[in-house]
């Protein structure tokens, strides 16, 4: 059918990339503010940005699948944890070459998503879907890459070390998610989430996110390598960001049907 795995995934969204606050940010008074800052550090830095992403998906048997794409992001009105737009242009694997994907992320409503299938010249609007399903067949969920709303969980500051705020988060709507709680190691000076562990009802860790490598790009600390391991699915996905740039010239109309059908070449090279 028209729905190739990529499409019907429904669980597709643009990847945000992590970056941090400048050093010396005042220590936040309460845990919600830590989490808000971590979300902003992970998904909202700069007014816009672009990155080339390489994704390596290894299953439990060690078989590898890869994804290569360019992502463009823009924060609407430059507000943290607010509206965003994403444009994703796939290059590899060959079956999704030149497929483009557009997301209008809303703070208080389901995201609007469109997929363009070049062989059919079809602009397909994608029905809203469970955010905790795989993004393009990887171990990352849609929500891992677009950001989980900081208000969706109850947060407790479990511990503070020299480097980290260790926050334990419990979902307000447990039936909507596959985990019982998660624990986040948030780097103190940059607010970058360095590690996130998801626990099942029995208290066992079954899913772990890790920021593997961070670089300072255009003044923003940026996670350029990360990984997600999920023992329920089996295997690990590694993500690598390159050619990252912030505050580039990204007109609003990039995020419309015009460029969905015919890519903005200058921005996706």
């Amino acid at each position: 059918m028209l729905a190739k795995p990529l499409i019907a995934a429904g669980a597709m969204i643009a990847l945000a990339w992590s970056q941090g606050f400048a050093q010396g940010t005042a220590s936040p008074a309460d845990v919600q503010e830590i989490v808000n800052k971590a979300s902003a550090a992970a998904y909202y830095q700069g007014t816009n940005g672009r990155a080339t992403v390489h994704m390596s998906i290894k299953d439990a048997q060690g078989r590898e699948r890869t994804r290569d794409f360019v992502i463009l992001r823009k924060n609407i009105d430059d507000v943290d944890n607010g509206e965003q737009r994403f444009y994703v242009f796939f290059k590899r694997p060959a079956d999704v070459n030149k497929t483009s994907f557009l997301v209008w992320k809303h703070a208080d409503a389901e995201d609007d998503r469109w997929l363009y299938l070049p062989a059919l010249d079809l602009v397909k609007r994608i029905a809203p879907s469970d955010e905790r399903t795989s993004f393009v067949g990887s171990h990352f969920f849609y929500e891992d890459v677009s950001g989980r709303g900081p208000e969706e969980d109850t947060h407790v500051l479990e511990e503070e070390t020299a480097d980290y705020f260790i926050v334990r988060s419990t979902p307000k709507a447990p039936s909507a998610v596959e985990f019982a709680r998660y624990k986040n190691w948030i780097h103190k000076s940059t607010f970058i989430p360095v590690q996130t562990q998801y626990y099942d009802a029995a208290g066992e860790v079954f899913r772990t996110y890790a920021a593997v490598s961070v670089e300072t790009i255009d003044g923003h600390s940026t996670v350029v390598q990360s990984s997600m391991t999920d023992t329920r699915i089996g295997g690990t996905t590694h993500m690598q960001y390159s050619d990252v740039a912030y505050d580039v010239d990204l007109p609003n109309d990039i995020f419309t049907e015009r460029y969905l059908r015919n890519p903005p070449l200058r921005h996706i090279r």
Partner: protein
Amino acid sequence: MTNWRAHMMATAIVTALSAIGPALAQEPPPLPAGLSPAETSGDREQTDEPVPNPPALPADLDAATPADRAPEKGTRKPPSPPLGLTGFIDARSGARIIADPTQKTLSIGELRAQLGRDVETNIATFRFVGDFFYDQVEDVSDADIETGHGFFDLREANALVRPLPFLDIKAGRQILTWGVGDLVFINDLFPKDFRSFFIGRDDEYLKAPSDAIRLSAFSEIANIEFVYTPRFDADRFITGDRISYFNPALQRLAGRDAIIDAQSPTEWFKDDERAARIYRSVAGYEVALYGYSGYWKTPEGVTAAGQPFHPRLAVLGGSLRGPLKGGLLTAEFGHYFSRDDLRGDNSLVRNGETRFLAGYEREIASELTASVQYVGEYISDYGALESALAPGATAPDRMRHLITLRLTKLMLNQTLTLSGFNYWSPNEQDGYFRFRASYKLSDAWLAEAGGNIFYGVDEDTFFGQLENNTNLFVGIRRYF
């Protein structure tokens, strides 16, 4: 193997020990490369040396390390295609499961290579896509680039320019699609290839190419598109050569014994087509208006001498698409003016009609999406049609109702897609069920199996006439 076991044991012991320890003793993850430790932490050595790449994983990720270091299986990258070519090689075989005296038993038996190449210059982007194929069922003798018959199908050969900041122009052979229906087309009067659709070729072949120029102008108020096709591009419709159909003149099912030879308008710049669309977003909904002037895409008229032809057609319509209650709502209508039968009293030309659809799609379980559409087709001048009927002929129902249902399920980390799409007409008592299972063996290889099941009470209804074409197929594809 022994090393592996030892490592696993060690990891298990470490994990077990850390689990018994007090919660506070849990090791914090080491800082990733590039993040500096807190300046106050005197017990930590500050170093400017680059951290080895990849850096040590945080403590609790250690368990995953053996898998990462395991001998890499199946990680070989597909070889880069020569000359920047992209595409695939596809082998596909299928057979009819109902005997059809007018057709070969084989429904498809083809080997296909699609080659594509983009050339980007400062002024324009050029795109070429062509399919070379050998199909055992096809008669290579009538090779034709317009109908896709033979051994070569030129899918795209076009240039895209952006001469003004608000204007895109794409000229040449291209695939064109608009409208919001799911496998139902109302305002999309660009050519379709129903033969490919019915015999199990990939979905992309439902769209046949147009030789056209497409102008797209964008503004804050609305976006306007205009497509000019200087010479009429018909659908690749059912002619009987591969798919049998109900022949009204013979009053029976016919196939290779009665191949339709329709007279197609062929004069450049005279037998042309114009299509336009104005669209914009209104409160999260995509709203569009459409217009078309050209010809019925299938031969909906017969000359007095009995020759099928494409009568003139104009269409005006609109569509709507947007979110509703956790799903997606679509709606579209189009009024078809049959310009060679405006009063509806010409029994040799199809009557005008109004077509409309309403659809809803949503995810009903994890990675399971369902969509349903209602489609109606309402004949414009039914009284005139009835009174102009030839003696003995029966009139169709004034309204044709059609309900479509689609289910798509993704499994095995989205490598397996199971999908079904059913068309069913309650008043014509016929339908068409398409199903597919496609499995991605790797990034490069795809295996697929499926079927096209046609059913109906009568042999002269839209899908009922196709019953004998019911087929099953398998295919394998290698992308490069």
